[in-house]
């Protein structure tokens, strides 16, 4: 299958290794991956902050850039959720592009029927189901199925896993104190598991959790699911 990569503005700028890992996993499985170079941002930050006009312009831009792509993959469930679930509310003509966009784990498990991508990873890992992957994009247990098939990986359950890490886009700075209180609890739960890695399917939440763990000097770090699958 020829798959277009939507790397997301955040991934492009701060986590290029996540985009490269997504590419590697899909190529290893024999798919052709292309990167439409005109892509920028899906508009989620603008919509979530109340700037609907700017969000609509970026949404239309996204639909135009990815117009000819049969399937679009992204390592960010919240950006996929934006395109698939929220674009139609911005503009009915934007419904179609959402039917072609997939988050990486749902593409692998649900579309391509693959759970074992041939990865091996040494260590104890816990999985944080991000809010948008749970409740907007609804990737279900696809990430867990992929993790269970990774050789050498010990998967441990995260207490209060389904509770938000406190990121929430601009929420993290508009309500920094509340956000930090939520983050502190999330980090404490991660440390309780004794895992050395916390993984998820959203770079933005991982940036938040990783920033908290690093500030604490904690013996755990964050790593995107794609990077575990590519190892």
């Amino acid at each position, binding site marked *: 299958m020829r798959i277009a990569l939507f790397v997301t503005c955040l991934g492009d700028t701060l986590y290029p290794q996540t985009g490269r890992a997504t590419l590697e996993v899909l190529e290893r499985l024999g798919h052709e991956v292309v*990167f439409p170079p005109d892509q920028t941002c899906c508009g989620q930050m603008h919509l979530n902050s109340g700037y609907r006009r700017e969000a609509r312009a970026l949404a239309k831009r996204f639909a135009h850039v990815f117009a000819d792509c049969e399937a679009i993959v992204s390592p960010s469930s919240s950006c996929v959720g934006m395109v698939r679930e929220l674009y139609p509310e911005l503009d009915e003509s934007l419904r179609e592009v959402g039917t072609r966009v997939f988050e990486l784990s749902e593409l692998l498990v649900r579309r391509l029927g693959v759970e074992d991508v041939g990865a091996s990873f040494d260590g104890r890992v816990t999985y944080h189901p991000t809010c948008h992957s749970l409740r907007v994009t609804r990737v279900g247990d696809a990430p867990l199925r992929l993790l269970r098939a990774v050789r050498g990986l010990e998967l441990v359950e995260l207490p209060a896993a389904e509770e938000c890490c406190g*990121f929430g886009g601009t929420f993290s700075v508009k*309500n920094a104190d509340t956000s930090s209180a939520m983050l502190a609890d999330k980090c404490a739960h991660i440390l309780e598991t004794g895992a050395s890695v916390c993984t998820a399917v959203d770079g933005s939440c991982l940036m938040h959790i990783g920033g908290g763990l690093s500030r604490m000097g904690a013996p755990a770090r964050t790593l995107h699911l794609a990077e575990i699958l590519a190892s």
Partner: protein
Amino acid sequence: MTSFPEAARVALANPQLRANLANATTTIRAKRARVVDEVPDWEELREAGRAIKANTLARLDEYLVRFEEALLAAGAEVHWARDAAEANAVVAEVARAHGVTEVVKMKSLTTDEIGLNEALAAEGIHALETDFAELILQLDGDWPSHILVPAIHRNRREIRDLFARTIASGGLSDDPRELAEASRVYLRERFLEARLGVSGANFGVAETGTICIVESEGNGRMCTTLPPVLVSVIGIEKLVPTLADLEVMLQLLPRSSTGERMNPYTSLWTGVAADDGPQELHVVLLDAGRTNVLRDEVGRQALQCIRCSACLNVCPVYSRTGGHAYGSVYPGPIGAILTPQLIGVENAKSLPYASSLCGACYEVCPVKIDIPTVLLHLRGQVVEQAGSRSERLAMRAAGWIFGSARRFALAQRLGRIAQRTGIAVGPLRTWAKTRDLPPVPSASFRDWWKRERA
């Protein structure tokens, strides 16, 4: 109104409050999950609840008139109140007409919303709160922080000390039964002497004029049956079309709110019954901004709310800040969408942002109010009507940068350079107070792709 982030800071700095809240919300959350999981058709029930309330709101003008006709036929007096002042004046007038200086009140958010107790106090009339938690707050000059568990921010040791100081005589332990008994002894005499009761309503049934309240303690039933005169203050959105609709609502409400299959007391009354209960019933139908909310096609679903408070208990924001931070009798996620609509977004512009948009509230709402969607909708209104100029400039600039891949690539390069200075400004600085910033890599993904693949 103090902004949410500022008010939240005060709550977050109080470790006792945070511990009380975390304990209470975790307990209720687990109870709710247990009793909801045992209902095989819960999703169908939610859909039925949503449909009943949405239909009621779509034809509210007809249902209200039908409700009034049924009430009049059953011997009640009906008062229409455009705002808080009109509603309070009706209650005060009834009290004056009967020469009453004390009224017994059951827990009612609607009367809290209109500030009834304060309005009556200004007329020399004392409104006695008879719900256990409301009584605690009234005795201490405090105010509710949760829709269903108003004193959720208090623990029993604090309550023991308060009762010992106020209503109890002799020694008192912090055993919940002993605390409840102390309030029972105090309240019983007042119930028997009361000549005017005041209630809210959980539901008003349009076809029959029946009013329905659900409660746990029985104080509501005493308020609505012992005094010879009763005033019920009802928000116009509280109607359901028929008695049969209560079948759905009375399954949804207790499971969602207290995590019980059925609440201990459900009372229904229709007008005045000869020689039984109050012989004079006044019903105040309150608008107070609700008609304006109805005008908004996206926002109006907030009026479907049946005040169960499930959204508060699952909210990661509420469970850390508590209810006072929301500056309204309607706290938590539902308050964040209801309050700005009732009092105007310009008067509560931080509330639509008091959410990480995690969506846990929508998942548990028994009438399927899509709270995240309404939050986004209201954020749009804040930006249009009362937005910050500097934020608008920054967002427009970001939109312009994202409008071209060339400009975006340039901005990425500038970001790398800025990082080398080591100075974090604006939002980055706020972020960096508690969280490390990720290092900006030497090459973006698009740089790498251009070099290796293109």
